[in-house]
């Protein structure tokens, strides 16, 4: 699916260089570097041939700014780098070094999560040790398809004095633009042969680096472009509407559903007449395929867009997202279960705008229709049950590919009741002011997949770290004596983490009384505990969630509980918390439920959300006290 994302990736190359760590405030030399100008010129000959030129000049003030002197440029057959030249200029304006096209490090075939792609990455180093210094560089791409039309991101993590984007197109060439942020319409000039569109941005303030940003590419000034019609590997795409794109995209998948005999045999074994329900067939197929087919992406040429033929994926034993979706769809269709592929832009970087039909997607999922209802699935998530999408795929627009024009639909959303951390804690006080604690944590929905995903991708060896830093909310002061995971083979049944340990000095003795703090469980996730006071971008909460806690406190021998604290009940639009205390034989049982209703918090909601969090924290400031018998 790499190629589907190309238009974004290619055009934010510099942005990617700059987006690591650096932020600053707004006053001149206080910054690590300044982008003095950025000229971007796209010269379109037709929808399958264009030249894209970039020319930039950056003044670098300190060693942090050196990150802007490392120019990483992607290079592949569809988006071919033809020229590069750069130079370093010292503080006196004297040129001290030049770099040409071949003066770079090249890495080919390696591409992040993709096992192999036909993409190379060239790295040019325009660096000096004496500050300030200035770099100038320009490069040129030959573009084979405007499906990967470079977008314009004039805003960086450093101040930008001037940035421009010029499009020179044959007169009559039709395209659409989508403007985000405070950017102006272009100045248009026209002659008989060409029309020129010039977009300009002056004195752009730097972006601020913040964590847990919801759809971070949407939070900055940006213009995306797409032709009204274009060709790609001989296929025609019209961006008039989502329906037309759906029909055009269908040609990518229509002949990919070919089955071999072993696939038919598998389906035959799952479809005993009058016995197996469609749900059982889907689940049975998932159990077989997830054990035999691995998610491995190899993307070469149109292989970045078009799925492998279904039977080849099964024979090969692995495939990328679209290969796996196609494999499932073909076999389910053979079992007479209607199933359709859907292209999505998974959450994290960008969002699909329902008003801007385009092929800005980076992933494929599918859904089946059973009794008029949809069952969604993302087969790259091998630990997810059928019918459960991972949170990155939830509640977003996706394009259904169908010959009749499937159009744009939204994936299902989840509620706090779907994503619950169930935590049971047994506490008993020791003789040296320590607390002996036994945690028992499992979860449902996205919370369950978070735990399972962490354990799958990082391994069980990292479990203590997960308990400390993840969303399970275990007290960071716990010294573990034992941690284990009870795993299940069934994707629908949650794993359980059991941890035992000691929290030292958690018991206080004052004037003949013993006090226990109730803070052995956090009810705020780590992303809710970051500084929100001066935040400028929406906070990504991943998904609505709940904590459902039972804390069982053993009454210390020789002590009796004083009056139990009053129950707590607090609720607002963001969610709420309730805490109840009860006495049962030799234990005090505390039932605590906290829920959060939101996927994300908008910037303007932040003051109210902070107040919400403060009220939640205030609810927990109580102690259990005991007197001697």
């Amino acid at each position, binding site marked *: 699916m790499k190629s589907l994302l190309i238009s974004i990736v290619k055009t934010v190359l510099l942005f990617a260089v700059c987006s690591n760590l650096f932020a*600053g*405030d707004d006053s001149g030399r*206080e*910054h*690590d570097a300044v982008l003095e100008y950025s000229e971007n010129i796209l010269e379109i000959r037709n929808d399958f041939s264009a030249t894209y030129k970039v020319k930039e000049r950056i003044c670098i003030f*300190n*060693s*942090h700014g050196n990150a802007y002197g490392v120019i990483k440029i992607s290079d592949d057959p569809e988006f071919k780098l033809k020229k590069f030249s750069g130079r370093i200029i010292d503080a006196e304006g004297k040129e001290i*070094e030049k770099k040409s096209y071949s003066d770079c*490090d*090249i*890495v*080919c*075939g*390696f591409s*992040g999560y993709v*096992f*192999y792609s036909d993409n*190379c990455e060239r790295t040019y180093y325009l660096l*000096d*040790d*004496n500050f300030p210094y200035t770099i100038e560089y320009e490069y040129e791409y030959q573009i084979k398809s405007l499906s990967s039309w470079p977008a314009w991101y004039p805003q960086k993590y450093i101040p930008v004095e001037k940035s421009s984007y010029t499009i020179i197109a044959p007169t009559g060439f039709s395209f659409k633009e989508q403007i985000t942020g405070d950017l102006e319409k272009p100045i248009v000039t026209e002659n008989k042969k060409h029309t020129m569109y010039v977009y300009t941005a002056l004195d752009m303030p730097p972006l601020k680096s913040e964590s847990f940003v919801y759809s971070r590419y949407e939070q900055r000034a940006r213009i995306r472009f797409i032709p009204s019609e274009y060709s790609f590997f001989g296929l025609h795409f019209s961006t008039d509407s989502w329906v037309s794109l759906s029909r055009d995209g269908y040609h990518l998948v229509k002949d990919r559903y070919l089955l071999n005999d072993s696939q038919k045999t598998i389906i035959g074994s799952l479809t005993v007449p009058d016995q197996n329900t469609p749900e059982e067939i889907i689940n049975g197929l998932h159990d077989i395929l*997830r*054990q*035999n*087919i*691995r998610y*491995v992406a*190899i993307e070469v040429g149109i292989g970045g867009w078009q799925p492998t033929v279904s039977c080849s994926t099964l024979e*090969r*034993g*692995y495939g990328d997202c679209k290969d796996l979706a196609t494999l499932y769809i073909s076999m389910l269709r053979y079992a007479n279960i209607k199933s359709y592929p859907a292209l999505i832009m998974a959450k994290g970087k960008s969002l699909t705008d329902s008003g801007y039909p385009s092929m800005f997607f980076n992933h494929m999922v599918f859904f089946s229709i059973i009794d008029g209802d949809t069952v969604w699935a993302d087969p790259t998530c*091998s*630990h997810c049950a059928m019918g459960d999408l991972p949170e990155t795929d939830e509640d977003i627009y996706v394009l259904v590919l169908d010959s009749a024009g499937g159009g744009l639909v939204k994936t299902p959303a989840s509620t706090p009741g779907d994503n619950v951390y169930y935590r049971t804690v047994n506490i008993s006080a020791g003789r040296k002011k320590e607390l002996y604690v036994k945690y028992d944590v499992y979860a449902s929905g996205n919370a369950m997949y978070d735990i399972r995903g962490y*354990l*799958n*991708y*990082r*391994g*069980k*060896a*990292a*479990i203590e770290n997960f308990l400390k830093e993840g969303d399970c909310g275990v007290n960071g002061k716990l010294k573990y004596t034992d941690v284990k995971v009870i795993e299940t083979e069934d994707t629908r049944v949650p794993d359980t983490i059991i941890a035992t340990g000691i929290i*030292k*000095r958690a018991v*206080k003795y*004052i*004037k003949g*009384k013993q*006090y226990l703090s109730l803070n052995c469980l956090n009810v705020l996730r780590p992303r809710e505990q970051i500084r929100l006071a001066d935040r400028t971008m929406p906070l990504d909460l991943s998904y609505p969630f709940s904590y459902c806690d039972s804390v069982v406190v053993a009454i210390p021998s020789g002590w009796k509980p004083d009056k139990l604290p009053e129950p707590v009940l607090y609720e607002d639009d963001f969610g709420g918390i309730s805490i109840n205390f009860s006495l049962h034989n030799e234990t005090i049982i505390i039932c605590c439920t906290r829920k959060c209703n939101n996927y994300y918090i908008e910037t303007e909601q932040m003051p109210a959300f902070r107040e919400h969090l403060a009220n939640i924290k205030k609810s927990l400031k109580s*102690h259990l*006290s005991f007197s001697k018998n």
Partner: protein
Amino acid sequence: MLSKLTIIITIFCVLFSVSGILGQEYGVITDEEWALEPPVDYPGANAVIIFDIGVYKLTKNTFSVTRHCRVKVFNKDAARNVTEVDIPYSKGDKFKSLKAHTYTKDGQKIEVKEYVKKKIDDTDFNSFAFPSVDNGAIIEYSYTLNIKRYWNNEWRFQKTDYTLRSNFTLDASDRFKFQVTYRGIPFSLQLPGLKQVIKESKDLPTFHLEMTNIAPASDEPFMGAKNDFIAAVSFDVIEYEGQRGKYSYLTPWDELGNNVYEYFISDFVKSKKKISTLSDSVCMGIFEPRAKCEALYNYVHQEIATDIDERNISSIFDVVKRKKGTQFQQSELLAGLLFAQGISANLVFIGTRSQTGQLDHTKRDLNQFNRLICYVQYDSTEFGLDAADQYAEFPYLPVDDLVDQGLFLDSINSKLLSFVHPERKNGTDVGSIIHIDEDGGAVCSTTVYFKGYAKSFLFKRMEDSVSTEKLIKDYLDNDIEIEYDYKMISSSIVREDELDRIRLDVVMKITDFAEDIDGTVFFSPFIIPIEKNVFIKQQRLFPIDFGYVYSNRHRIQVTLPTNMVITNKLSTIFKTFKVGSFKRQVSAADNMLMIKADYSISRAKFSPGTYRQIQEFFEILSEASQDQAAASPIAVEGDGQ
């Protein structure tokens, strides 16, 4: 991409060390292998390498590497470093009989059919992904690579995954003699007398070593050069006996040093006249040797920038003219300038702590060195200088250069040399005055002195940071990980170079500093902890390398509202271990609490055998940082009674 590259590099190292296939038949999986579970001593294993066998065959004209590896996968999602393989090779190398298969639990044998070529600069990779790998599957591959150019390298027994058996064979013509170097391998496994390997029979391999049950190496705090401790064996050809006689490849250190000097350095040092002119101009009006050293050091340190690309410079005049040179060239220039003043200044090759680690003087390999320093001797004073390190200060080497030995370079008298480094007071002094108000909030004024090497980490930040406030906030939030919600009222940072320290001042207001439980106020006076315990792993296989010896001090004064009295001051602690000592003294008077806490470590580097003591020591420091004092309202006469 970084992690990917790390894996590639690891595989690269493994490949060019390789091994031998001794009786392990391809494709025959035993019942025991199918029944394998994660090792008891490594229950979180995502995969185990059942065996990794290599044969390294060397004749006069050919060199081949044969490798056979079998792996059981327990968690396919986290085991991509074994289920996706990148084998490096060079131009002219040829693969022979490369094959790879997945064996599934239900008895299928699935062949890898798709191989792709990747590239990083001049190194090519033959890459493949195993198909249909589920948890419990076994994967296996083998190949022979005929390598065009032989070079000495190592076989790593320790991998990124738990290895049940790693087996290495060197099979060479009996005309070769080798020197074997062991690293991280138990002494009991090292074959006696095998510092020099001589083939005894044509039917026997030259060398064979097997290790079993090897846990993967993992990153740990204060570990120095990780590569220095990964279990491996390496071979250097020391002699080849041809028909026309013996060729010795074992070059003595002095000869190696002399050669380095002749080929790389002599041209620089020979330019005496122009160097003398420059040196004299820098030292004009200076007569005392130490002051001359400092002036010349500062000249190179401040005027000559470090260039990573050595192709740019051809002579010492280029360095001076362009005001830029490689690290080697900067040291050479400094030596030349000092020499021109009649000060004995020699060039010494060293291997830094973080890159090459401990020098093995039995292994005549210049790859053990990566930095050139200038070693100065006058009167009875001697010290090393590294003018290329941006933040090093005269007359001290940067922490990474603080090694015990190096190769002294000379035209005729090169030799291995042991160093003496000048003593330096390192550590931090923390002084805090804390006023707690009636609401449990506090105003805290803290001064931290970073002394000696302890201040090094601040230099770069001071230069780079957009503001003092941001720098101090980063320090409090990320280094100290301060646990309170605080607001900074004022902050400053001052370099006090003449005292070899940096002073950091911060005043902050902390909400919820003290906790009120039924009228008793609890608070922890150590806003800046005495120490955090980062040594959380149960055991450690690598030395603990702090870089330098240091001592830290805390002086804290806490004042509560006048109607409160301290009811529980902290206990006094005196602890002395082999690894360090800790002393905490506390006194209280009415509403005031005063604390003195000092700790120091006894050495810069500790062996893994002392890990338990280090752990215990740091745990005590960590706990002492969290101890809570308590105060109560002064009972008013007749109050409530």
